[in-house]
């Protein structure tokens, strides 16, 4: 018998991997994409170098927003205790 709750749990773990990959791409991509030139020729946003602004500041805020959105949309509430097994198989 396959526990419905585990199917949900497996999907959420995969979502976690997806998020961490997106996080990595934003963080790493902006940093070394925009920041690899000569530091003297950097453009600045709000006083910070552009690579830093996008990678560490805007990127972090975007990730927090994305995590919030993903949890609202895809994360399901399941009971953790055993006695309620039957109730959740229908959901």
């Amino acid at each position, binding site marked *: 018998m396959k526990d419905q709750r*585990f199917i949900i749990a497996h999907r959420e773990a995969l979502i976690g991997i997806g998020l961490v990959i997106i996080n990595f791409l934003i963080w790493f991509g902006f940093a070394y994409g925009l920041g690899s030139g000569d530091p003297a020729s950097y453009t600045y946003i709000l006083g*910070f*170098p552009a690579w830093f602004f996008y990678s560490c500041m805007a990127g972090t805020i975007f990730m927090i927003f994305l*995590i919030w959105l993903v949890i609202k949309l895809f994360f399901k*509430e399941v009971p953790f205790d055993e006695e309620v097994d039957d109730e959740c198989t229908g959901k």
Partner: protein
Amino acid sequence: MHWQVIIPLLLFLIIIFGIGIWANQHVRSSHSFLQEYFLGGREMGGFLLAMTMMATYGSASSFIGGPGVAYTKGLGWVLLAMAQLPAGYFVLMILGKKFAILARRYQAVTLIDFLRERYKSHTIVILSAISIIVFLFSAMTAQWVGGARLIESLTRLHYTTALFLFVISVLVYVIIGGFRAVALSDLVQGSVMVIGTVILLIGTVIAGGGIENIMAALVAENPNFVSPYGAKGELTPLYVSTFWILIGVGVVGLPQIAVRAMSYKDSKSMHRAIIIGTIAIGTIMFGMHVIGVLARPVLPGIEIGDKVMPLLTLKVLPPFLAGVVLAAPMAATMSTVNALLMLVSSTVVKDIYLNYIKSTASEQEIKRASFIVTTVIGLAVIVFALNPPDLLVWLNLFAFGGLEAVFIWTVVLGLYWKKANKYGAITSMITGMGLYIFIDRFYPSIFGMHTVTLPIIISFIVFVIVSLCTSSLCKDEEWVI
């Protein structure tokens, strides 16, 4: 002594003691001492869970060591520190609901309980217990030393006195209050950490005359301070991205973090904790490290990195606020120490004493054993912290990476791969640890990558191959997945 600075610190300590005493009421009235003392009765809500994960993870190095390095390396170090953002959501999502459900089914109180039920192997229990005790004991000693140094520098007390003061305040509330006290004080400590970071960041920007001014001063001194490669170009993309494994995703393998992923109340707590935890970790890691960089023009010429944060705080903030901010590294150190102390004593009591020495121990005997073990460990740490032996310093240096190399696949594959078996787990644990020590000793930063990278990759391959080859030996041990 700076009394105005010390008063907020004292207030902070009094609150922490109060929490310990309050939590003790729960331990006394609980029907299951083990679940209550070591897990707080699995009752943590979202905010509490987020704060205790964050406070356990954010140690003295995030508040004292980290800003000091950022001071010498520039914005590149902040970039590297931001690799820690996944620590806020990744562990809870990956271990997730499956870990929470299975931990309840097995009545697991420690990570090792889970591994024992999953793999049914004494070798794994013993290997895990040894790695936890050896590595976390040394990690704890380092935090102990850090806490004492902090008190020493603030109060001008002698190091030994400072050490005793620090250790006794931590021991008292851990021993009387257990996990609930630890988690609740993490709530206070975590909040102090976030608030302290924000205050100091604002103070530093004002003292430096705005971000533009500070950046211009940095570029004038050395343009590399504002590049992602670090002041001397030492932070290569490969090194930074493999460091991401150690402090970002590899955190799944840390037992002190994993045990928190089995202690929350319900799904809703977990969802909230993911959001709050990510915001809190993002704020602290960004704030504290960027403060280190901004401090350079504000407070030039500091030779010892560890002094940057305390000196900066005393310079840019009025004394009372400085006290509040300096409570933050104090909080970070205490919350990490008490989580480690809890974990080591639960390993000794639950995983060794109850499994192998006296499985029929009564509630009363378990209680007594827990108090004795926690006290003895705490006092043993004092002896080592007074005069740290070289071996301990060396062990502490790679406690994080070592634990990750041992536990990450054993936990993650054990949770999600039904063919994972004890032979795979044992060989992978030994390979991970052995390789980690070997590379650390003989080829540090091999191929320009962080030391932890290869052990994690190779122990994964070993785990999968050995599990597949030995699958015929474990046919009868079906595992629900």
